[in-house]
């Protein structure tokens, strides 16, 4: 099901018709989406990944492009609180659910995960870290008292090319303690 403004009558909700829509060049559906607590309207083609909607259309560039196939985790966002790969989902798949990006994780960068990241000084190049932080924060919501092995399992899907893994581990454990 698509959640959108019906700015163009051609747009309907069945998958079969979506294929037809793609063949009509000028079609640019207008979507209403909820990002970081605000309602936003965007005009993009059906297949545009949420990642590029955030980056190019909403100027929320904290969410990073790493691989485009859900393998590296750099584009991780929260969809109704669950960590998901924004490179591999379209607005249609959001189905009205609310998005939180790194920019909206806290008002002023004081989420316990962000504070722990600063305390431990996790990043080297820093590029993957928004995705790491979003994965870690969603994980701690579901498991507030993790063991170190739980943390390793939860963070295994996010690549850090600079290999700041021990600091990520440490920061997640500190945040877990501080969230109690």
């Amino acid at each position, binding site marked *: 099901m698509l959640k959108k403004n019906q700015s163009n009558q051609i747009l309907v909700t069945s998958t079969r018709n979506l294929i037809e829509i793609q063949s009509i*060049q*000028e*079609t*640019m559906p207008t979507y209403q989406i909820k990002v970081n607590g605000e309602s936003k309207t965007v005009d*993009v*083609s059906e*297949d*545009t*990944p949420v990642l*590029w909607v955030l*980056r*190019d*259309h909403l*100027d*929320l*560039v*904290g*969410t*990073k*492009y*790493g*691989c*485009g*196939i859900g*393998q*590296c985790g*750099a584009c991780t966002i929260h969809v109704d609180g669950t960590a998901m790969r924004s490179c591999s989902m379209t607005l249609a798949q959001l189905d009205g659910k609310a998005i939180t990006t*790194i*920019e909206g*994780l*806290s008002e002023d*960068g004081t989420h316990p995960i*962000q504070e722990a*990241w*600063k305390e431990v*000084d996790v*990043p*080297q*190049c*820093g*590029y*993957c*870290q*928004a995705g790491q*932080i979003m994965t870690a924060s969603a994980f701690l919501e579901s498991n507030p008292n993790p063991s170190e092995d739980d943390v390793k*399992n939860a963070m*295994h*899907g*996010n*690549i*850090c*090319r*600079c*290999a*700041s*893994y*021990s*600091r*990520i*581990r440490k920061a997640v454990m500190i945040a877990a303690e501080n969230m109690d």
Partner: protein
Amino acid sequence: MSTNTALTFSRRAFMRTSSLAGGGMLIGFNLFQACKPKAAPPIDLSQLNYNDFNAFIKIADNGAVTIFSPNPEIGQGVKTSMPMIIAEELDVAWKDVYVEQGILDTENYTRQVAGGSQSIRHGWDALRQTGATAKQMLINAAAARWGVDASECTVSDGIITNAAGETLGFGDVVKDASMLEVPEDVALKEPKDYKIIGKDAPNVDIHKIATGKPLFGLDYKVDGMVYAAVVRPPAFGHKLVSYDDTAAKAMPGVLNVIKIGEKVRGLLAEDPSFSSKISSSDKVVVVAESTWQAMKAKEAIKAEWEEDTSMESTEEHDKILTDLLDGSTFKTERSDGNIKKAFAEADEILERTYESPFLPHNCMEPMNFFANVTEERVHLAGPIQTPAWKAGLVAKMFGREESDIYLEMTRMGGGFGRRLYGDFVLEAAEISSVIKKPVKVVYSREDDMEDGIYRMAIKYRIKAGVKDGKITAYHLKEAAINDNMYGLIPNFFPAGAIENYQVDTANYRSNITTGAWRAPYTNFLAYAEQSFFDELAELMEVDKIQMRLDLLDKVKPEEDERIQYSPDRMKEVIKVAVEKSGWGTKPKNIHQGFVSYYCHNTHVAEVADVEVENGEPVVKKITCVVDCGIVVNPMGALNQIEGGVIDGVGHSMYGELQFENGRPTASNFDKYRMIRMKEAPLVETHFVKNEFSPTGLGEPTLPPAGGAVANAFKAATGNRLYKQPFTKTPELLKVPSKEIIG
């Protein structure tokens, strides 16, 4: 005091102050000229302003201090550590310092580089002198106002105090100070008086990183900017014949489809040495209103390619490199004594061959760059390790003055050598010059992995001769794709330790582009040599550590100035590593592997602890001992060390890019294995404490890691590993079942 005019001139040439229109003072220096005091620049000093300096301090009337960091930030931490060194000598509190990234000035400077772990080492003296000079000028201004001698004044945290106890802040005297003569022979602090150097300082960009603020090249945006995706040759050795853009042009958001390549070929014709680094084929470019539209429309381009040169493969490379090692086309890089005679007289000979694959850099931020070529200027922005080099090439490409190029350096989402080459800068500039718009070229991950400038495949063959229980001969042969080891490496350990010693190199010219990859050559050579020494010690039935120490005893750098490493500093890291790792004292279930290595001016020893789980060896911990001289920022230094070690473990375990028909067989992380959280061992670091000038840490802990793991795996499994990645030979990673039972 005698005056050395040449020194006076050069000093004045690299250091200068000026008043700011809105109040305050700037002090700048030319970092790299400062390193070479004899090269006096032909410039009119009276014409200098703050833009003439590639790093500087800005002090406002209210005393606020901004320090500009000169070098590109790639994740190595220099944006934090270089300003720390200035702040130390300036004597301001680090918490009161605001750090900004400096821009490139192509007119006055020839080198602002992130590479070779050299920023801190080269900057150390100049950065300290700049801070100390600025401080002395502020003191002189305060002393003049008080009518006292400057020598009675002291400074702490930006406050100047005289003998009577009166105080003035930097902001109170900055206007006067900016008009004073630049003092010479300023005193530098003794290490014991350091307040900032040696203390933990978090990354200056940490808040921006943790909150997702725009920092990287991919985040860079200006009004009216469009996005470009490039259709690249389907394999190395191809060139473009024709293309059909009908479908692509009809897609939403597509603005232009163009062909590029001519400009780059012009550069390649002028300097053929680039041809192993940069592809010369034409490429088709889709320009669109958004990144996704450009990437999508790119897929709709129907391009026809033809084979230009041969389609190479890993299988073929493997044979070629072996043939080179077996052949006689070597260039001798260093030769001591007479290896031929020594081998003929040896009681025992050990010869082993080590193999490594191609590696992509896989920076997490795919290659990208912004360009806006206008009649007025060429505006470039993005992640680049060699901004000055690229600005020069872009100027040459368009036949323009280098002063027309304005280049902003963004933070880089990793570099590892890939961003030294800047082929993407040239692409962006050529595209912008054709479409006459500000444009950002963005590589997909597939572009990044399939059209890389890779670490080349290399094979080493090492042969040692033993006579009367002593190593009498050592012969290292390198067969590499495209380029051979750089000239300093033949003078690394064991050069100087073995009487008859020779290093020979040979190469094969491939059409696959190759270049520097974090710790070039040593990233593989360290493993090969250190595995070899481990095996040699077993053959000789001597203690592995003692063998290294005995060899180091023979090295006399004072008699051979080519020797790059310090045997004394090497012995010290070995000694500390033995102690801290519990070498030889571990319970039976922990198998250890030892490596000591020198590269990038830093001495490192690493011990890997391996345990057997489910019949396979698992790397649990690496103890790493580092002598990098004074540690500027321990917090940042530890991060570099841990990252380097884990990167070294990861690539030696899993890293491999194979080619078939001129094309990599992996194009994204689903097919290319990178080390991840669960495989990352614990890294325990110890610094050797001394007061030597600091050296860099971006690279030197990576090369020893693979060797430490291989030697520990041997201890655990009984098998020697001669090929990277280690997972390529899974049969050698099995522990015989009796060992498990036992």
